[in-house]
């Protein structure tokens, strides 16, 4: 009886699309019903860009995209992500406007968007989700959307600025693409 249950649970599994690739996981020894998405991504798949810093949904360092929206991967069970599309920072192209804007951030008065860099992947993914939903947010909207992310190094001014610059990049690329002969 016990044996049968074990066998059938091993047959049960989940499928998650991670950074464009479908992955199958069998429920069993290394994936239990209580495994978090963060654990699965970091420990099973090696996507260590996301960080687990508080493990209770209070810092934002583990943020990834689920179907384009931000989720705290420490608060999502792996089984809940079954059938969904997950994107981690490793899945963003180097010319993603948010990545570019964070990398370039440097303006008199604002400072860089990262110092130790530990919060950065979480901020980038939260910002990416915000801009997916609202490509031209106001500063107040940026603050609201990123209010759940902690940067202990305190580069908040640079981060907010980078998100606004990313929004401008998106608009410029759109305009470039729309113009005849324009380049994205």
């Amino acid at each position, binding site marked *: 009886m016990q044996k049968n249950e074990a066998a059938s649970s091993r047959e049960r599994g989940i499928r998650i699309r991670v950074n464009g690739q479908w992955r199958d996981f069998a429920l069993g020894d290394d994936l239990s019903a209580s495994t978090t998405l963060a654990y699965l991504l970091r420990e099973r798949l090696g996507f260590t860009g996301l*960080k687990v810093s508080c493990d209770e949904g209070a810092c934002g360092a583990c943020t990834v995209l689920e179907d384009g929206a931000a989720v705290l991967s420490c608060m999502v069970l792996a089984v809940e992500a079954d059938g969904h599309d997950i994107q981690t920072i*490793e899945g963003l192209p180097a010319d993603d406007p948010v990545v570019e804007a*964070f990398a370039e951030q440097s303006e008199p008065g604002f400072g*860089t968007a990262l*110092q130790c860099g*530990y919060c950065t992947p979480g901020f980038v993914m939260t910002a990416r989700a915000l801009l997916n939903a609202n490509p031209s947010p106001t500063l107040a909207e940026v603050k609201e959307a990123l209010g759940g992310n902690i940067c202990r*190094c*305190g580069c908040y001014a*640079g981060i907010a600025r980078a998100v606004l610059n990313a929004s401008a990049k998106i608009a410029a690329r759109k305009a470039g693409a729309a113009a005849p002969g324009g380049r994205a």
Partner: protein
Amino acid sequence: MKPTKESELNLSGATRYLDDLPATEGMLYGVPLTSPCARGLLRGIDASAALALDASVSVLTASDIPGENQLGEAVSDESLLVDGEWSYLGQCLALALAATPSLARKAAALVRIVYDELEAVTDARAAAESGSFILPSRTMRSGDPASAFSRCAIVVEGRVESGGQEHVYLEAQGAIAESLEGGRVRVVSGTQAPSGVQRAIARTLGLGMHDVEVEARRLGGAFGGKEDQAAQWAALAALGAARTGKTVKVYLNRREDMNWTGKRHPYSSDYKLGLDAEGRILAYEADYYQNSGACCDLSPAILSRTLFHAASAYRIPNLRVTGRMCRTNLPPFTAFRGFGAPQGVFVIECALDAAAREGGWDPVELRLKNLLAEGDSFHFGQPVADCRARRTVDRTLELSRWTELRAEIDSFNSAHRLVKRGAAILPICFGVSFTKLVMNQGGALVHVYGDGSVSVSTGAVEMGQQVARKIQVIAARSLGIPEGLVRVESTRTASVANTYSTAASTGSDINGMAALAACEEIRGRLLGLAARMLGADKGELRIESGFVTKGCEITELAWKELVDKAHLDRIDLSAHGFYATPGLFYDMKAERGSPFAYHVYGCSAVTATLDALRGTYRFDEAFIVHDVGESIDYDVDLGQVEGAFAQGLGWAALEDLRYDERGRLLSDTLSTYKLPDLRFMPSAVKIEFLEGAPNPKAVMRSKAIGEPPLLYGIAGYFAILDALRAVDRTHPTKAPSSAPYAYDLPMTPEKALDFIQGVRR
């Protein structure tokens, strides 16, 4: 700015911090079993249930330690694993090892201990009453305060409380130790002090320091929390590796980290300040009761910085300040950005606040009148040199349009009953150098490789303060080559030995100078060769942008070619550099000397808006004028000011560290310990660097930047206080004359509400 390599790696998720390093075959995870109450006597450990859990489980106790069971450096009061009595909740009693982190946690939970609970003390003053101190008290004096008080027109006295602060480096504490042949160990440690960790491991394992190699990779924040307190996790991992022959990883989760590690020291202080009728300070006395926690850790050094900064940026002719390190049963409090200075500065600022109210003086006028100037001396005898106090304050008043701002706030307050605004300014003066003389030294190792690329190793640990970036700039400028050719390595004890912690804001001052010395040595050799190749005089040659220049003309001789030729000519392309900060001395007995290489000045103005019904507030604006000397990298320095200010503001107004009376931490998660976020920060923060202010005392005429700006946050406390005082007597729930005199930091909304309602006075 051109994005740096490091930031690009970060943004692709590729930077590997300690916990991101892939697990190696057969790796074991170590989880400590810690003490269940604040003080107790360990009678026995029964690991049988834990051992039965899984074949991979083992449990190590004090008797497994081959060397000395001791981590304390200044005072031997900190065992690695408790053997007998423990003195705080969360002290390590045993280490459970297993094949996965969750197995190891389960195993640790299954270890049974037999113990007696003993009486504990958590309050600093209570500890002082019972004579429980880490070391004898320390006093600094100047002039004759006792007789000066008798000449004062106004004397104010009172008590000041300031709370602790949790570091919340986003990357928790941890280490990975690998056992090598012959009993040697190699350790990756999340530390600010690799040599300190190396020493701790050698001591506890009974090895020579040459048998222990420690590497610190880029840290996800540290802020002082990984200066002394990284050692025990690394020593535990090393112990596990030594006993099992396997690689062992110890990595705390957030709750463990918050419960088990030290924080900024809470202080309770008494002050007495006397002024003449014009508002000139004549005398000041303060007694600081530092809650040091259960072990010595860095408490003496932190206390000394409190005493050195007792007068902050003010001239005080007659002074007596005494600090006591009160031993309590809380986890040992430790270094945190500012290192005791914020606590001392807060007390004198409270005293001035009380004096301004008592004497009816304008708080800004009062501060200006007493500001340090050239020709003054600090109370420990060091002359005030190259003083920039007045310049930074004047510029802050200008930048913030202080006079208009004050008038606007006052008229706003008379027009609004339930919303009040407030503002405050705060000058700073922060001494740079480790107050412990021996720590003011550092080394560097520079290699120029055959292809012209350069590797620089120093004792500095990169933890977000971008010291690696600064050292890269320093090396590139010194060698006259593009920055891209210079790589700054992770910090390794086998490359640079006998280093001290990257702390006290001195990371780039000391290590940058050491790197510069090594680069200059190599440049000298290369220019000698170039002189021979070009038939020129060495003195007229330089290297700029990768080419040898002669006078103002650029020669054909490129860096790479020069390096290539040097190698063929068998010229050494490596050099070691060393730096010891000159001119420092201090007589501990007399409490006199020149402990600081120089001081950093600056000033902040902060405004706040208070909801007088709810006690909630927001910060509106901050203006900061900071003395950075000549900035090596503007973006980096700006970020340091912003970040330190955010932490200072958090300490002053938000971060509420609470223990219950039995020594249990109540705020032990990020959902119960609030941190500054984007919405908490003032809507506008204007930061300006003082112009035309080179510093001849440090590398490339710069000034250290890490800690001083944290003090600016204290202005946030007084801005809220100012708003609270505007809450008028007609307020519906406000008790009459409940204007706060009690100084108790942080000024959380709960406290603000208590003040409004007269619960607190």
